């Protein structure tokens, strides 16, 4: 592959201590290198912002989203974000695009690339449905992908925890990642998915799961310990119990404290808490519901074992999709909305409900404020990942809107001015004047997600990194984002260049090439589990498949055909 050099850019690369410097970025064979020959293709960044390619560490982009597409032909025609949503005809290069919250696969690939994002992590897939997810992954162009595998209501997991059999738990966790070609472990409403198959839920960390002698707390600690014993690159990735319920901050804080006792196997968090906005509510009902962001931030600022992502809300139509089955049923009944449900045998629940958020409602206005408060009140940006829990809090094409909100107090105040009075004593955002700088923004959208996931080759521009680069038409030393937020938002929406694996895929906001992305997955089974334990696991699984599953064990694992460009990561055996 030809060499390339990016000149005259203002580079932010927080991992390598580069903070707005006019460095050259050299690229060879898809990787960042220290220098290139004189014949290298020159990309003139003309004083513009140069960042590592964006990393979305939590997005619902393949799998469940397809049921949402089938449910919502209305979404296919929404076009609230010009150039990044709605129907677009095919071109010589591009396939047709549709949708806003649930675009077709091609739309997802093109639009993330236009935003300067190059890597996405599907946030929730059961092992049994992983084959479907990989089919969609293969259809999403350009981007690199990875998947977080749902294990928080899994029968095998709960059985082995109940038995106190930590070796089996480890073996199964490693096998589940292998079977699904998954990257990390996701836990959604631990235990609640299993109870939801009976139409029930759990109400907190210490409830008993109906069919197993375990609690959500047992599941969290058990999986966290197994995760660290396997030395997986990512920590457990947790969606707490009681999402979206006033007063749920008690459960969230208890979950945070619970994990203090587990030690991380490497230099990263021991637990990532996802879409924190939905879990930071005080009060006892929607009447006295208010932001608890200060309590969460206090805890985060005084502890170092956790990271979280925002789950920022975007006003307008959203599509909620989660393995938290009971939450979706509650949403559907509360808003009289259409409701899809899926209980996956032995593995987890799931639901889908379209919602719409409006600044005219104090509850939504408060939720919108909480996401921003969390990101602004936590001092260390390395603890915070930027997300909207796409498309639960809002569609990813709105990332620039929310990013600019973090960088402009003026823009925030403009929005807050339109809120109903009932909002004001529930939020602290009006009194927070912090504005993120480019370095901090780069951490939250690139460096931190890569570090949190344990993806060494992503999120930075040091030698050896994948040559994923985003260049935006913003002159960091000339622009005042606080005031010129609209112009900056536009620049972040349509990258001047997006370079993926050393190839220019976007230029001046238009797609130029359609390389196929890789899929990262973690193989902790091959070397991480001794043969005797593998045999013990297989004996048990054979029995379980015969009795309880509806497909054969031999037809269960994702075949090589579905992962044509894999990047296999084998953790060091402890």
């Amino acid at each position, binding site marked *: 592959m030809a060499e390339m050099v990016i000149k005259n850019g203002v580079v932010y690369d927080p991992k390598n201590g580069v903070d707005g410097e006019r460095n050259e970025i050299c690229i060879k064979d898809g990787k960042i290198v220290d220098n290139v020959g004189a014949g290298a293709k020159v990309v003139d960044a003309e004083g513009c912002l140069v960042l590592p390619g964006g990393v979305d560490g939590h997005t619902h982009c393949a799998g469940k989203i397809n049921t949402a597409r089938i449910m919502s032909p209305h979404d296919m025609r929404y076009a609230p974000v010009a150039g990044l949503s709605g129907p677009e005809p095919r071109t010589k290069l591009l396939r047709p695009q*549709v949708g806003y919250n649930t675009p077709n696969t091609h739309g997802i690939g093109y639009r993330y690339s236009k935003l300067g994002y190059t890597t996405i992590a599907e946030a929730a897939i059961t092992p049994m449905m992983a084959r479907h997810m990989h089919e969609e992954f293969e259809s999403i162009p350009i981007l690199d992908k990875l998947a977080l595998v749902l294990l928080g209501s899994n029968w095998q997991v709960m059985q082995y925890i109940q038995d106190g059999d930590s070796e089996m738990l480890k073996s199964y966790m490693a096998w589940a990642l292998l079977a699904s070609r998954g990257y990390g472990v996701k836990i959604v409403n631990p235990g609640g998915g299993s109870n939801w*198959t009976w*139409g029930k839920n759990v109400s907190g960390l210490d409830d008993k799961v109906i069919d197993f002698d375990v609690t959500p707390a047992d599941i969290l600690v058990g999986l966290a310990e197994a995760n660290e014993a396997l030395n997986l690159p990512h920590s457990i990735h947790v969606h707490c119990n009681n999402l979206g319920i006033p007063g749920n901050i008690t459960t969230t804080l208890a979950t945070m404290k619970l994990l203090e006792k587990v030690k991380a196997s490497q230099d990263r968090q021991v637990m990532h808490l996802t879409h924190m906005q939905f879990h930071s509510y005080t009060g006892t009902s929607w009447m006295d519901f208010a932001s608890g962001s200060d309590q969460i931030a206090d805890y985060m600022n005084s502890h170092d074992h956790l990271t979280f992502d925002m789950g920022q809300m975007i006003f307008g139509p959203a599509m909620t999709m989660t393995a938290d089955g009971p939450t979706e049923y509650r949403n559907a009944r509360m808003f009289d909305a259409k409701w899809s449900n899926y209980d996956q045998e032995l593995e987890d629940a799931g639901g889908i409900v379209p919602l719409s958020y409006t600044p005219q409602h104090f509850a939504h206005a408060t939720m919108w404020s909480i996401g921003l408060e969390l990101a602004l009140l936590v001092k260390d940006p390395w603890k915070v990942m930027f997300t909207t829990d796409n498309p639960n809090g809002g569609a990813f094409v709105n990332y620039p809107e929310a990013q600019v909100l973090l960088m402009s107090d003026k823009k925030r105040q403009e929005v807050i001015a339109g809120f109903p009075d009932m909002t004001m004593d529930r939020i602290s955002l009006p009194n927070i004047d912090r504005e993120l700088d480019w370095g901090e923004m780069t951490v939250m959208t690139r460096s931190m997600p890569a570090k949190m996931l344990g993806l060494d080759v992503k999120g930075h521009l040091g030698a050896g990194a994948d040559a994923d680069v985003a260049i935006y038409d913003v002159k960091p030393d000339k622009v005042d984002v606080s005031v010129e937020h609209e112009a900056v938002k536009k620049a972040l929406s349509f990258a001047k260049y997006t370079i993926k694996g050393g190839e220019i895929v976007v230029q001046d906001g238009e797609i130029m090439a359609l390389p196929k992305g890789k899929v990262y997955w973690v193989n902790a089974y091959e070397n991480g589990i001794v043969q005797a334990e593998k045999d013990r696991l297989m004996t048990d699984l054979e029995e379980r498949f015969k009795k309880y599953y509806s497909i054969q064990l031999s037809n269960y694992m994702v075949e090589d055909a579905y992962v044509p460009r894999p990047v296999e990561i084998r953790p060091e055996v402890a």
Partner: protein
Amino acid sequence: MPVIKDVVCTFCGCLCDDLEVTVEDNKITKVGKACKLGRAKTMGMFLHERIEKPMIRKNGKDSELEECSYDEAITKAAEILVAAKRPMSYGWCSTSCEAIEKAVVLAEETGSLLDSTANVCHGPSALATQEKGAPSCSLGTAKNYADLIIFWGCNPVHAHPRHQTRYSTMAKGAFTPNGKKDKKMVVVDPRNTDTAKKADLLLQLKPGSDYVLIESLRAIVNGHADILPDEIAGLPKAKVMELADMCKASKFGIIYFGMGITQTRGRYKSGDNVASLLSDLNQTNKFVMIGMRGHYNVTGFGQVAAWEAGFPMAIDFSRGSAYYNPGETGTNDVLMRREVDAFITGAADPGAHFPQESIKHLYKIPAIQVDGYANPTTEFSDVVIPAAIAGVECDGTAYRMDGQPIRMKKLIETTFKTDEEILTEIIAKVRELKGNGGA
């Protein structure tokens, strides 16, 4: 003798994946564990009339089909599609998802309409989902949990013969260890079918009154039994009350529904109301539904079309972007309006299943068939391209009726091209003829 285990059956939406197939000298000599339908399908190429060679009609519909090469047939097919102003692509449900992806590309490339067999089957189920959602579960969940099974307007004994032993009435699961003894079975059908004969309760309702019955059940479940008349949908009120009581008493109920819901009076509104009933029931106990899909991969068509193009069926690419308006853009909508001027179909048999008005129009326009077997569609096709049988002669992906994808196996070698290969070659030819690389 080489026996291939855990073979995926490619007949119905049950997609049983435990077949044992014996292959001798590249011939399938025995199919173990399959039902009658599955065995016939898997051994099909040794039982049925195979299309042996590509064929073209050179002098209009009344002339004979004449054998030709794959290249000639594929070129002719591409010429027809490129010359058409309003081409339609239909079917692609008894083939692999990999082939379906190519069918989507071809439809985009030719500005075509694209639809599946759901147009005359479970299409209204998708519309119902768009109205009210689809509260569902995997077949294994139903096996493990369901203590009340309702077959509504379907007849699995004949259409999905292993459904009851593998997934529903007779299946033993974690919380139903005694199989049938731990479950109640209800059939709602105007006919006393062979499935109905084994039911604990049969509601033989008046044909076409499904919506009324669903609505009445909702009234009872929501505490308004007193407003209902003595006779409901041709049934005594007491019998309807009995079903409502069974629903309320169950811990995990499931409605398996078929054409009796989707293609009778009320159509998608009946499906919409089933979902509403389930939403009501879930306030007290778990209740879900699964559509009894017929073609083994019609579910896969909906999945692939949704992720590739945004919609599960009835897609119109004539604007360059995907447009969807079933009722306007469904296959039989456009055929009955005589709007289509070329037709390509694969892995389906519209000739046997479409209304006469549609067939009459198909007889007037150039038609292309891609299939392994001759069938009524062959009779009016101008280009006939033989294909390998997916799941027997080539591998690929299929989606079970509950949305579970499974990889089909290749069991024997073949000289026939696969659907995927044929579509890929037609796409290449279309691009060549258009001479602009696509757009």
